[in-house]
């Protein structure tokens, strides 16, 4: 469609009769920016009978009235019962008509003058005027006029548009083949006497498409291909490119507050890049958005969940983790939970939730209860972390597992009566077990006071947060006749691979017990003898080097056997490490008191557990028990089997059964060959290249209930809250499970009024710079009613009907004429619509931080295109590294091709935001970010001019220009300019550029500029120069390239 197609309607609107009724309303409600262009259904109607429909309806509740009520009245007369005054609600028509305590109707429809609301807002008595002066929210005259006009017209309420399921709007009748987007835009513009802009020129369009769809500028070849293949084919090709996912994933990473470190003071590294790669892959294969959301929230709960689906749940684990000394882990887990809800609110629901963390939301329908209802869906989880394997490794693992199963089968075949034999064996084992009483601690601390252990109901002690060297547990158990103590190392879902160690292999250097009799002053040590364990490694010798100052000499330390626990040498450790993977199972050590204890009631008992090494070898979950059985010892079978045998048969899990079978098999002498085979099979388990933080559902026994927290304070639970969703949104299906999976599916239920709209709006925002709803993270009652709600709703309905395909949606939008308009601004259009909310021109804005960098790398030819992998460490000035509280000694900037990977792969450190990314407004992952603001600062200018990678790009672009751009400066100038902007320079432009090149070349020739320094950064070195070029050429063109890389047009999507 060309501009002229718009003309007939435009003319019609220019000459429309201005009826008196319309004028009156317009005058009364002069704040309304877009009176004639509301929602689609009406808009369509308006085309035929504009005046009638307006005259009858008065101001639009949604667009004009509701924001006033929400802003100025909602705090005391809204949803929140706690803060409600006079028992009056104004957000519900019925209540407003009935009035509050006073019994006076606040609103009398059709009769503004009889409405209490009107007399109160008009009052000049400070005691009766509304809003009360102390609220400091006085109404403007125009707002008062709007309220009066609205009541006069009948005080019609509509539910907030965004909480009503979108319906496909009627699209103005247009010629076949016209995009409904264009038809709607045309009708809105026509109503305002405006016309769309002409289509941008092909080169601009091609560049726009490339920057938007793949985040890279087109090469000269790609520009030529665009001319040959045409627009729509190019769109398809770009959507099919792997580069597409790298561009579009970044927007989701903002929302997901992705980072490669944990944040807070320590800000240690974390491994999350496989999750980032999962997002890129999901975009590339156009995973339907509903599935995309479900897998990220509850992929682990899907039937036969794959590794990818578990990795996907890293989404919610992107929260910062506090590892500061002496923190209480649960306090900061709660902060993470708040962050997760905030993230879901912004990313999926388009709702602000933070308010309801402490109290019922003041203006959106989320009560305090409902907030914790949402919370409850996510709260029953472990903070899990696991290995992640490559596809080849997974095949290898499957193979090992098959062989393990076959070996087990061999054992069963060899002993056909195995079931009965095993039952007898188990009975014998059970009969030999002694009774242990777990000790309830009265006080738990650690030597450096850095760890605060917590004890669970089954007396398991979990040691999260900061590590420490020695754990100290105090209690007042019954010690009469106690003969021994058992230290169990146990697994827990909050630990890496479930523990029992923090990272992998763990050890305990010393176990000490002491007692303090009632009224006593001193702790008296108890003598411990006869240590036994279910498993210990053979003795190994560690040589600890002498200290640098020579004060401590070299020491040889023997680790391994359980006797090391009580050998009095605080350096030698009991190690129960069964090896890769199999180390993640329980273990036990038992020590005897030299003689049975005979201590009075009330005696205090202290157990000190000294951990091996530092953080990575710390035991993270244990339990201490006492027995009175004579000469207690640890049975020489895996503790997992003992725990299983102690579990009643009906409550055993398959893992319990397997543990018993395994222990039985190992105890059979004639099965030794099979046992050996199995042991060597385990050794074949591959070493995973990385790990990921993910979600895992808590076991039934460790189910976590959710409580409403008083003012959001982590340790102030008020009452138990079950999982439920806000009543104002679509209902939770009666037959759906009330767990994370049910919740995830509810979020993407086609009945959701918000989910599709929010997703569609964000895609629009990415392409146009601003969403149809400007506040893309907030569709609540305080968000501005969008000019183009009809486009939003039309796209939202389309989106769901086309299987939530984001690529299809993007295709739909970029194929529209609206998107293809020229972005040229006239002073008229600027004055009329500075933010381009009416879409009478194409989008023009500086590209995102990542794209800024990628453009420089691409046009210089430095870029390395490779998908996925660990974060690439960029160069960062030393004085930035020095600002860290905890110095990141791992910071070794990538060299060679890795250095020039796309910015989506850059390592992101929360407390040290990348200086380049930050100066171009990239968020640092502190919290979910739905829209970046764009700034234009001197710091960004300095980065573009002087940051090492940009400087390297300028040098490379110069050499590329000399190599490929022809033999004279004019053609080189054309080429370099073309590479950067995708268009040839104008005569004026090339003149300016060539004058600069000539002047700089002369300056080099005259010796004022050192060509070596300019081209390599080193005084003695020159780059490899293309044939027939001189160092002067390279230097002059490096300087020119630096200018070109910083052109507004180079950094801008035009």
């Amino acid at each position: 469609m060309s501009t002229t197609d718009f003309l007939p309607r435009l003319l019609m609107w220019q000459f429309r009769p201005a009826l008196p009724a319309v004028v009156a309303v317009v005058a009364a409600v002069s704040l309304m920016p877009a009176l004639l262009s509301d929602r689609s259904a009406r808009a369509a109607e308006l085309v035929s009978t504009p005046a009638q429909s307006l005259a009858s309806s008065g101001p639009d509740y949604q667009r004009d009235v509701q924001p006033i009520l929400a802003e100025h009245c909602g705090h005391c007369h809204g949803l929140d019962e706690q803060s409600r005054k006079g028992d009056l609600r104004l957000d519900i028509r019925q209540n407003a008509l009935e009035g509050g305590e006073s019994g006076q109707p606040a609103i009398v429809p059709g009769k503004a003058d009889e409405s209490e609301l009107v007399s109160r807002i008009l009052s000049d008595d400070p005691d009766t005027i509304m809003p009360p002066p102390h609220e400091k929210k006085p109404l403007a005259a125009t707002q008062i006029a709007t309220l009066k006009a609205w009541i006069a017209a009948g005080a019609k309420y509509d539910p907030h548009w965004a909480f009503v399921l979108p319906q496909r709007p009627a699209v103005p009748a247009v010629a076949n083949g016209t995009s409904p987007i264009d038809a709607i835009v045309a009708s809105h513009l026509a109503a305002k006497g405006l016309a769309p802009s002409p289509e941008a020129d092909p080169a601009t369009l091609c560049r726009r498409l490339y920057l938007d769809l793949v985040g890279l500028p087109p090469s000269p070849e790609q520009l030529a291909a665009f001319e040959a293949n045409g627009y729509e084919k190019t769109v398809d090709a770009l959507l099919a490119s792997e580069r597409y996912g790298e561009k579009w994933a970044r927007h989701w990473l903002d929302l997901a507050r992705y980072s490669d470190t944990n944040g807070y003071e320590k800000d240690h590294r974390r491994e999350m890049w496989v999750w980032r790669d999962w997002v890129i892959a999901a975009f590339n294969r156009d995973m339907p958005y509903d599935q995309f959301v479900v897998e990220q929230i509850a992929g682990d709960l899907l039937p036969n969940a794959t590794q990818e689906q578990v990795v996907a749940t890293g989404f919610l684990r992107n929260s910062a983790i506090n590892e500061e000394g002496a923190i209480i882990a649960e306090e900061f887990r709660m902060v993470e939970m708040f962050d997760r809800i905030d993230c879901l609110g912004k990313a999926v629901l388009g709702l602000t939730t933070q308010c309801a963390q402490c109290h019922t939301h003041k203006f959106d329908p989320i009560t305090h209860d409902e907030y914790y209802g949402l919370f409850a869906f996510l709260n029953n989880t472990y903070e899990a972390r696991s290995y992640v394997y490559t596809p080849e490794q997974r095949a290898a693992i499957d193979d090992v597992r098959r062989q393990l199963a076959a070996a087990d089968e061999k054992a069963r075949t060899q002993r056909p009566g195995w079931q009965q034999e095993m039952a007898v064996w188990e009975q014998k084992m059970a009969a030999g077990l002694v009774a242990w009483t777990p000790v309830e601690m009265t006080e738990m601390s650690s030597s450096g006071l850095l760890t605060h252990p917590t004890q669970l109901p089954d007396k398991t002690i979990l040691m999260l947060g900061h590590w420490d060297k020695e754990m100290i547990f105090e209690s007042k158990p019954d010690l009469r006749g106690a003969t021994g103590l058992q230290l169990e190392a146990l697994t827990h879902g909050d630990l890496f691979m479930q523990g029992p160690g923090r990272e992998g292999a763990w050890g305990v250097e010393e176990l000490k017990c002491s007692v303090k009799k009632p009224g006593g002053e001193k702790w008296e040590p108890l003598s411990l003898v006869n240590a036994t364990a279910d498993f210990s490694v053979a003795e190994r010798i560690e040589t600890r080097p002498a200290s640098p100052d020579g004060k401590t000499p070299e020491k040889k330390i023997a680790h391994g056997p359980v006797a090391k626990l009580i050998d009095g040498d605080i350096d030698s450790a009991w190690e129960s490490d069964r090896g890769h993977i199999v180390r993640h199972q329980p273990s036990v050590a038992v020590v005897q008191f030299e003689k049975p204890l005979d201590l009075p009631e009330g005696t205090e008992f202290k157990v000190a557990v000294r951990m091996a090494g530092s953080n990575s070898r710390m035991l993270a979950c244990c339990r201490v028990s006492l027995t009175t059985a004579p000469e207690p010892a640890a049975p020489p079978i895996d503790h997992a089997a003992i725990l299983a045998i102690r579990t009643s048969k009906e409550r055993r899990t398959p893992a319990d059964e397997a543990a018993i079978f395994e222990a039985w098999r190992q105890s059979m002498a004639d099965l030794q060959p099979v046992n050996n085979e199995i042991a060597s099979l385990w050794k074949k388990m591959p070493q995973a290249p990385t790990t990921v933080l993910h979600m895992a559902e808590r076991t039934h026994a460790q189910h976590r209930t959710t409580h409403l927290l008083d003012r959001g304070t982590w340790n102030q639970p008020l009452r138990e809250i079950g999982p439920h969703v806000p009543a104002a949104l679509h209902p939770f299906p009666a037959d759906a499970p009330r767990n994370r999976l049910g919740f995830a599916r509810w979020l993407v239920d086609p009945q959701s009024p918000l989910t599709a709209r929010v997703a569609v709006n964000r895609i629009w925002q990415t392409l146009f710079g601003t969403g149809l709803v400007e506040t893309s993270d907030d569709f609540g009652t305080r968000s501005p009613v969008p000019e183009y709600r009809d486009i939003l709703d039309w796209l939202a309905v389309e989106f769901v009907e086309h299987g939530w395909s984001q690529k299809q949606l993007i295709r739909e939008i970029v194929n529209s004429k609206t998107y293809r308009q020229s972005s040229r601004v006239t002073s008229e259009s600027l004055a009329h619509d500075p933010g381009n909310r009416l879409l009478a021109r194409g989008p023009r804005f500086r590209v995102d931080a990542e794209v800024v960098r990628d453009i420089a790398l691409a046009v210089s030819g430095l870029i390395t295109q490779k998908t996925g992998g660990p974060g690439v460490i960029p160069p960062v000035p030393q004085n930035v590294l020095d600002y860290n509280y905890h110095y990141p000694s791992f910071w070794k900037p990538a060299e060679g091709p890795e250095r020039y990977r796309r910015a989506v792969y850059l390592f992101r450190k929360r407390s040290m935001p990348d200086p380049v990314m930050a100066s171009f407004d990239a968020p640092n992952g502190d919290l979910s970010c739905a829209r970046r603001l764009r700034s234009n600062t001197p710091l960004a200018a300095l980065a573009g001019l002087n940051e090492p990678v940009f400087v390297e790009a300028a040098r490379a672009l110069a050499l590329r220009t000399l190599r490929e751009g022809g033999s004279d400066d004019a053609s080189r100038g054309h080429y370099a300019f073309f590479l950067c902007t995708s268009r040839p320079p104008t005569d004026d432009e090339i003149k300016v550029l060539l004058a600069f090149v000539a002047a700089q070349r002369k300056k080099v020739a005259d010796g004022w500029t050192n060509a070596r320094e300019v081209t390599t950064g080193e005084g003695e070195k020159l780059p490899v120069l293309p044939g027939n070029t001189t160092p002067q050429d390279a230097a002059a063109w490096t300087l020119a390239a630096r200018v070109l890389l910083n052109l507004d047009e180079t950094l801008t999507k035009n």
Partner: protein
Amino acid sequence: MNTSHLLHNARARLLSRRWFFGECGVGLAGIAASSMLASEGRAAAASAAGPLALKASHFAPKAKRVVYMFQAGAPSHLELYDPKPALAKHDGQLPPADLLKGYRAAFINPKSALLGPKYAFQKYGASGIEMSELLPYTGAIADDICLVRSMQTDAVNHAPAQILMNTGSQQFGRPSFGSWTLYGLGSEASDLPGYVVLTSAKGTSGGASNYGAGFLPTLYGGVPLRSGGDPVLYLSNPKGIDRETQRASLDTLNRLNDLSLKAVGDPEIAARIQAYEMAYRLQASAPELLDLASEPKEVLARYGITDPTKAGYARNCLLARRLLERGVRFVQLFHEAWDQHGGLTKEIRKNALDTDQASAALVSDLKERGLLDDTIVVWGGEFGRTPMVQGGNDGRDHHNRAFTMWLAGGGIKSGHVHGQTDDFGFNVAADPVHVHDLNATLLHLLGFDHTRLTYRFQGRDYRLTDVHGSLVKGILA
């Protein structure tokens, strides 16, 4: 008052404006360049006249700039500002049980013995304010400061407490005090950032979030002026590019951008030209600022600076004065050194030696230059220390219930002590001042009703004081 620098600034601004309007050929609309999403009110004003344009506060301000000397790690009030003879008397005894009800320290079991103050106190100045023997220089300005002995905060771990102190929230993502100030008042500095951060000792627990812009536009964030290497990141041109080449490069860049502006009409291009020009000016103004050669010897001596090129707290204090003189709105010093869980006696003495003289010199220097009258000076950390011992007998744990900060300058009562703690310096006994109250009061001094300096984000009008804070009238002059 020394006005030469102000004149210099005004002239520079005028020149740059003239260049901007003339050379770039854009009118006022051109400055509406920044494509920030304005919500309303101040934000809208910001985008209409440039985000850093000068803006009027709600009412006549007492002060127009701030220097905030943040003592990260949390200094012990009990060794520095809050004399507690009773604590010395009960040294080694357990604190009264009722004191500990519901109490939580970070590391220690609250049932730890009391630890008497490690240093003696004495009266300073005409006002007779009692402070530690470790603070002779602060003592000398006792009559110029207001000691707030009744500070309180909510957090007991460093990072959350620092973030709370600086942004009004323990959760990440909120704008810092400096950002709010810049957003509220705009910048008077034409050649320097409006909000500058100086760091000594080590990096802070709160990291960059301590001075970040949060959800405000990036350009309201604090800009670190770093020691070692480029003071402003990427300030130096690459090797081989001198200032003349840089000028020629920018002239070329500007000409090309100007051609593009004429063709496309997007005012954002004009803003970009201005940003590159500002960058160029910064390349000259930052080194000039950092070059202390022009400072007389006695000035250096007053701050305790022996080597003017050596980085550190004292140098940062002098730089702060120079920044304020040049129209910088908000200067924040971070000195992360005060976390004395152990080694208290020795370490706090060292910290006092490192900071006392220069902190006091900054106040008296500002005073002599007539700048103190409309500058707010703040000194303090994220919380206090326990009256109870940590470890053997030479450390204190984190303590959020009571600690001391001091203020000086425009609109602040001088030679005054506000608030008091109980006999052990454990709880506030009179006139508590929560972090939010402090921030509300500081904003008041800058001319703002803290409930009305808001920015709409996600539908909510956020403020520095969240939903809290009340004006502490007792510290106002």
